[in-house]
């Protein structure tokens, strides 16, 4: 199918784009369009104005801030993130995540910002960014604001971003330990995703605290307190054993929706397996880090 007609604008500055998006009640930003254009083609979404963000400079920058935060521009494509030497070095879990999104065509033009803002529940970035404690920077008619990645997604296709706000960049604070992201998929999208980041105590042998997020199971990424608690204060070599004590029961707390990706017990089981593998990944990375 073809999309219905729409007006097409190509602003060259952020404030122009913010002004343009207010000009219609069915105006949308787009960059890669891998989600949005498909929805328009299928005519489940109507747009009367599309605002192409690709001519605005500096929206796809990947760099380290002076404070050591990793800054990822919202318009950075999955391919750019996958191949960024900086991210491969500083946050390999993110590079690996982006290398597995959909297929080469989506990775070429699809952006991390578009993925986050479209908020399809079967997606990867939101889950890991929540586990990493990332912050999302938005700009709109009322100015700029920052939202924790943990709070960005409200539900299916719904985020805290206002209609007239643009996601400009993602700030990932310096990590005090290893991180991992594992997903299971049999199609283009993840059926289950688990993101994890460890905060290690000085010496690198003890886990101070962990952040774990489970994605694609429910409308938004979820945490399970019991799992995070059981790993706090634990020696890294004992992490898997400590985790085993609370499993599988702790995962009953997860909201899991049965859909064409699988039934709820199947997905819950996969989540458990991925969780264990993430712990193993982080332990291995922590050991390597130490040596």
């Amino acid at each position: 199918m073809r999309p219905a007609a729409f007006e097409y604008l190509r602003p060259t500055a952020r404030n122009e784009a913010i002004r343009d998006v207010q000009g219609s009640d069915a105006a949308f930003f787009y960059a890669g369009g891998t989600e949005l254009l498909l929805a328009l083609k299928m005519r489940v979404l109507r747009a009367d104005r599309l605002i192409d963000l690709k001519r605005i400079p500096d929206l796809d920058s990947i760099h380290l801030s002076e404070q050591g935060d990793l800054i990822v521009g919202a318009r950075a494509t999955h391919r750019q993130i996958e191949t960024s030497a900086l991210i491969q070095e500083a946050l390999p879990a993110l590079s690996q995540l982006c290398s597995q999104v959909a297929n080469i065509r989506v990775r070429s033009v699809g952006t991390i910002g578009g993925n986050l803002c479209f908020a399809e529940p079967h997606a990867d970035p939101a889950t890991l960014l929540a586990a990493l404690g990332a912050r999302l920077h938005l700009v709109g008619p009322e100015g700029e604001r920052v939202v924790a990645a943990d709070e960005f997604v409200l539900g299916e296709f719904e985020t805290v971003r206002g209609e007239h706000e643009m996601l400009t960049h993602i700030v990932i604070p310096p990590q005090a330990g290893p991180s991992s992201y594992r997903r299971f998929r049999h199609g283009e999208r993840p059926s289950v995703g688990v993101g994890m980041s460890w905060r290690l105590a000085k010496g690198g042998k003890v886990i101070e605290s962990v952040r774990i997020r489970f994605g694609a199971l429910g409308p938004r990424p979820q945490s399970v307190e019991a799992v995070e608690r059981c790993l706090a204060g634990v020696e890294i070599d004992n992490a898997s054993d400590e985790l085993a004590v609370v499993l599988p029961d702790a995962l009953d707390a997860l909201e899991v929706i049965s859909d064409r990706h699988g039934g709820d017990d199947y997905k819950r089981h996969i989540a458990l397996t991925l969780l264990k593998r993430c712990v193993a990944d982080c332990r291995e990375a922590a050991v390597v880090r130490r040596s």
Partner: protein
Amino acid sequence: MQFTMSMDLSAAPEEMWRVLTDVKRISECIPGCENVQEIERLAVYTATVKQKIGPFKLEVPADIRIDDADEPARVRMHAAGSDKFTGTRLSVVMDVTLVPEEKGTRLTVDAQFEVNGRLVTLGMPMIKRRAEQNFQEFESRLQALLEKA
């Protein structure tokens, strides 16, 4: 999708019947339902049902018909319409029964609700959940309306 609800009301069925057959006020208990017009009293009505899930919108011009009215015990109605842009059809068949009780009336609503068309490609589980939320909201509003009367 099947939904059912029951509530105990302090007034007698005859009094509840009066409110229940005010189709305009009952329809306005449905989340997103607006602009209810009477075409033929206690028989035919129209309304617009609007829904929004994230950026996805539905605007459904609905025909509402009262199929069967057995005062003061039972009402059966059905409503249906399609959102033109997405080619999504909503339809509902609703049975309302009033049973007299010692302290008033037990009201039961049974609704059979269907969604068909392109919007379903977004995911039936999500649509089901939204329908459940709407039905629960309908129940709260209906209860408030009937208790006030």
